[in-house]
């Protein structure tokens, strides 16, 4: 597999140096692997810190900035960052109002953020954590590590980030983040596997005429393999899988998220099918976002995330945001 890299060992560091060159509004510490908004700590504001394995860009570093995250900690490709990074980030952004860790539900992320929370509290930083677990493809049972955190992470970071920007206290920001998690569900589909720089070849075998349903964002295989389907058929399966678990009484935010190698042309076509299914199921759409936001390296495919929103969540979603990956004004 050809890749635009020098050597596999330095892909994350190289990307961080490039990010620093492109975004003077961020402080990018490539050595310690922490991305912080330049004006941090912002006085009297709760700070949001997230992080996770690299390979999901723009998540999380691309979401650092006013209205979203205060800092992000990128790990190695598909590997959780280490507690040292999170503690460093928390110390850099805490204004004294406390820090919210946004954690995707993977064993590694959970364990490292848990250790980091304890260490940060030892340093006198008040920390709350919210666990994002929106992927309905995984049974939430004692026989698994629980649902994965995927597309809903963007909703949590945006809405909680806006709440923090408005000056809400930590308990309130945390409660809103939890509300977003509870109101969100996702389902992903892969048309091809992805290749990690370390391995250099696809992480699983997906024959030309087949697709993988219920796929995650780490190149891990999904739950079921079927013969290739049309965009129309995939939307039926994906949206119905989400709605089986989420019965929206309120309008929804829709995220049609590309996995990295699917063109926007196809994503928008797919969004038309998603809207068709939602119309058929009488689900009202409040806002729609289409693009590559929570990616899986060069995987081709798409995920659908729905989040039902009340007036407050919608207002916070619409609030201004200025990050590399998501940006809109008043």
């Amino acid at each position: 597999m050809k890749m635009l890299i020098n050597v596999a060992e330095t892909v994350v560091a190289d990307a961080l140096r490039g990010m620093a060159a492109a975004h003077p509004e961020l402080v990018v510490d490539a050595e310690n692997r922490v991305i912080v908004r330049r004006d941090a700590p912002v006085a009297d504001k709760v700070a949001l810190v997230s992080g996770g394995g690299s390979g999901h860009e723009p998540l999380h570093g691309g979401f650092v900035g006013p209205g979203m995250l205060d800092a992000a900690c990128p790990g190695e490709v598909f590997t959780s960052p280490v507690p040292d990074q999170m503690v460093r980030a928390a110390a850099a952004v805490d204004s004294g109002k406390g820090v919210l860790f946004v954690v995707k539900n993977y064993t590694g992320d959970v364990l490292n953020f848990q250790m980091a929370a304890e260490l940060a509290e030892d340093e006198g930083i008040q920390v709350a954590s919210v666990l994002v677990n929106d992927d309905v493809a995984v049974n939430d049972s004692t026989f698994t590590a629980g649902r994965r955190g995927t597309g809903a992470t963007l909703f949590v970071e945006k809405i909680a980030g806006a709440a923090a920007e408005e000056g809400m206290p930590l308990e309130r920001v945390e409660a809103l983040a939890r509300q977003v998690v509870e109101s969100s569900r996702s389902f992903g589909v892969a048309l091809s596997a992805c290749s990690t720089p370390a391995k250099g070849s696809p992480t699983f075998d997906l024959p030309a005429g087949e697709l993988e349903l219920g796929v995650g964002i780490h190149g891990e295989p999904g739950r079921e393999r079927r013969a290739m389907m049309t965009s129309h058929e995939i939307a039926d399966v994906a949206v119905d899988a989400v709605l089986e678990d989420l019965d929206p009484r309120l309008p929804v935010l829709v995220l049609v998220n590309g996995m990295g190698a699917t063109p926007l042309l196809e994503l928008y076509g797919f969004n038309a099918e998603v809207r068709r299914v939602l119309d058929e199921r009488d689900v009202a759409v409040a806002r729609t976002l289409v693009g590559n936001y929570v990616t899986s390296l060069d995987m081709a495919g798409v995920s659908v995330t729905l989040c039902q929103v009340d007036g407050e969540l919608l207002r916070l979603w619409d609030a201004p945001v200025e990050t590399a990956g998501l940006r809109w004004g008043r």
Partner: protein
Amino acid sequence: MSETALDAAFFVRWMTAAAAAVDREAERLTELDSAIGDADHGTNMQRGFAAVVKAVTEGEAPETPGAVLTAAGRQLISSVGGAAGPLYGTLLRRTGKALGDAAQVSAEELRAGLSAGVDAVGQLGGSAPGDKTMLDALVPGVAALETSFEAAATAAQEGAVATVPLQARKGRASYLGERSIGHEDPGAASSALLLAALAEVAK
């Protein structure tokens, strides 16, 4: 079990041998991880144990068995990431703490220490033997230390291989449900390497 006294130098040799074993087997670990995980276990363990060797051999090297393992565990937590970092880090740190500040420990004290470390891993990961994790190699391996280092290595290796028919209930492999059956758990495989390295330096 022999009455050999194990000093700090022995533990440094163990960590060095473990790093070499992880280096040798990195590709296989990553291959196993690619079948049921995310294809990075070999690389991550390589990075972690390289940092461990540096920490226990360079500068102010730790002077007791407990200090060697505690430092090694701290390095793994700070450099591996993923689930493996906190889990392996906890294994070595807790074992190191259990050994206290004695200048030398007996094989039996090491067995008891490792047993405490393994318990801590189970607690942190919320897992038990049979879940297709590190514990499936560590638990039988550490139990067989009662007999000999050699027996521990063999039991851990057999435990790792015995994860093949199991369905994963913890970690990323659990997302695959029944499709995790038929593959050796990468964490159990690297745990077996750790105990094989111990047997190697005890020879």
